[in-house]
């Protein structure tokens, strides 16, 4: 039947179907969500801190008073003073400047890793759910094995084998992080592909790729967005944890986790070395958690 339909007819039908359902309902859902999010004070406070952190990360070169590698061997491990607002580390480097550059690593990993996770997880989950049958079985089996592996354990294993470095962190988080999002996308797609509007679109002759990307996926977006907002702090935590044990970011590039890891050994003598980066990690994680909670409540009030 699809063969006998003129090509232009198919397109028009698809357009009509697309215009009739997902877009209209979609906009109102999103607009509603944004309104609910704006009303949530805790989430907005988290959002403001996140924006500030992003600005600090982007303008680190301008904001930092000293380069993060600049050593001053005359003034090692100094507590906060007028010259060095957050003190100096074991090599006489300015803690304040290193903290500012540390934001760059955290934000880059948090946001960048999620891009990779989405690019791997969503297509796999969508295809698995949409195609069903043997492809689905093979993919779910694989996902189940990956899921059984304690995640942090696997990331540490991969990192210690690949060696430290920002690129390797992306690889390690990307390799492990897509599993959760793939599972979620698959469950959504499974439910949505049975809906009448998908049947309608298919009856109108919409092709496979267009059906999946234009009709099914937009309706599966809510849980994906929620999962991404929670994935960001998880990636930031992973980087901090990896750098803490020394398999994350390569020195001399500063990372908060690495600063806590090195500083905690001298906590008795030089408390400032690990306390300031600890506070930075705590604030960042809390902000993302508050914001994520807000996004979840705003988009899907039932999930609370």
């Amino acid at each position, binding site marked *: 039947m699809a063969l006998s339909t003129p090509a232009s007819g198919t397109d028009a039908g698809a357009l009509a179907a697309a215009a009739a359902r997902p877009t209209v309902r979609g906009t109102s859902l999103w607009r509603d969500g944004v309104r609910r999010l704006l009303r949530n004070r805790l989430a907005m406070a988290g959002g403001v801190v996140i924006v500030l952190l992003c600005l600090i990360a982007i303008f680190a070169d301008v904001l930092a008073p000293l380069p993060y590698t600049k050593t001053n061997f005359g003034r090692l491990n100094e507590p906060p003073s007028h010259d060095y607002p957050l003190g100096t580390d074991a090599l006489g480097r300015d803690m304040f400047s290193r903290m500012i550059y540390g934001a760059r690593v955290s934000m880059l990993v948090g946001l960048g890793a999620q891009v990779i996770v989405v690019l791997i997880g969503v297509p796999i989950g969508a295809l698995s759910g949409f195609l069903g049958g043997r492809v689905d079985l093979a993919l779910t089996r694989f996902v189940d094995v990956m899921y*059984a592996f304690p995640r942090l354990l696997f990331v540490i294993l991969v990192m210690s084998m690949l060696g430290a470095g920002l690129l390797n962190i992306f690889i390690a988080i990307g390799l492990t992080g897509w599993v959760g999002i793939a599972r979620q996308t698959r469950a959504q797609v499974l439910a949505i592909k049975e809906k009448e509007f998908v049947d309608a679109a298919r009856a109108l002759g919409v092709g496979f790729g267009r059906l999946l990307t234009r009709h099914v996926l937009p309706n599966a977006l809510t849980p994906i967005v929620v999962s991404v907002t929670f994935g960001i702090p998880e990636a930031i935590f992973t980087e901090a944890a990896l750098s803490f*044990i020394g398999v994350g970011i390569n020195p001399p590039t500063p990372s908060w986790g690495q600063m806590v890891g090195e500083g905690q050994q001298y906590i008795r003598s030089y408390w400032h070395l690990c306390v300031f980066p600890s506070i930075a990690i*705590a604030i960042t994680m809390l902000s993302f958690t508050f914001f994520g909670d807000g996004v979840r409540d705003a988009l899907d009030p039932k999930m609370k």
Partner: protein
Amino acid sequence: MLQYIASRVLWLVPTIGAMALVTFLVMHATPGSPLDPVAEGANPLSPEAQKNLAAIYGLDKPLPQQFLIFLGKAVRGDFGKSFVYKTRTVMEILVETFPISLLLGSMALALAIAGGLALGILAAVYQNRMWDYVSVSLATVGVAIPNFVLAVFFIILFSFVIPLFPTGGWDSPRNWVLPTVTLALAPMGIIARFTRASMLEVIRADYTLTARAKGLGERPVIFKHALKNAFIPVVTLLGPMFAAVGTGSFFVESIFRVPGMGRFFVLSMTGRDYPMIMAVVLTYGAFLAVMNLVVDLLYGALDPRIRY
């Protein structure tokens, strides 16, 4: 039921086997070798010496054969000698350190369950009042903040500002307090959040209303009628809880200088100590798989609606 248990127990074998295979592949597929350490300052070895060492440790054989040899020995509890601690077998190290990690993990989990349930119930019973806010904020802090960051704050607060507990070590029960609390906070937060949500739902259910209507006091309503039902979904969380406590313990053990297994986890990986890596990953993995199974069975036992 028996058949279900039997099939689940049998499934453990391929699951753990798959974990061993994945770990083995990751170890060998990545560049570098234990004979030729990439670490700075490592002694360069002559090719002959490398060959001899490879023969001693069986690293000269083809990979599939190495994997099969490992499996055959591991089944009999022999993980070989550690590459790094050359005088001791991996099994000796595990026997010495695993009980310590297990003690720490069990104490943390017990605290997490008791504290999480208490906070969750308080929050639900006093919804939108002070206790609710206290427990929700405590739960959020526990979930959001990494345990090594919490550890730093705890040491500053409870070892320096108020000198109540030592900063580390494992000799007396006084040393156990801070690591246990640090490790327990994250799972406690998750349990509290879940218990709260689950309790709120149950408190509004018809049978709770019936219990109240027949004149029962607040206490029996909450503990006998509501909690029993609210507890069921919380049990599903216990599986991931074990994982959280297990992986969390590397960090907590290293900060508080606990002589447990966690320390070897990172050391063996950065040192490319193949036998040690396999043993540690498999011990954690097998422990988790067994615990997940126990949790699933417990779930069925608690909820008579579930049939296998």
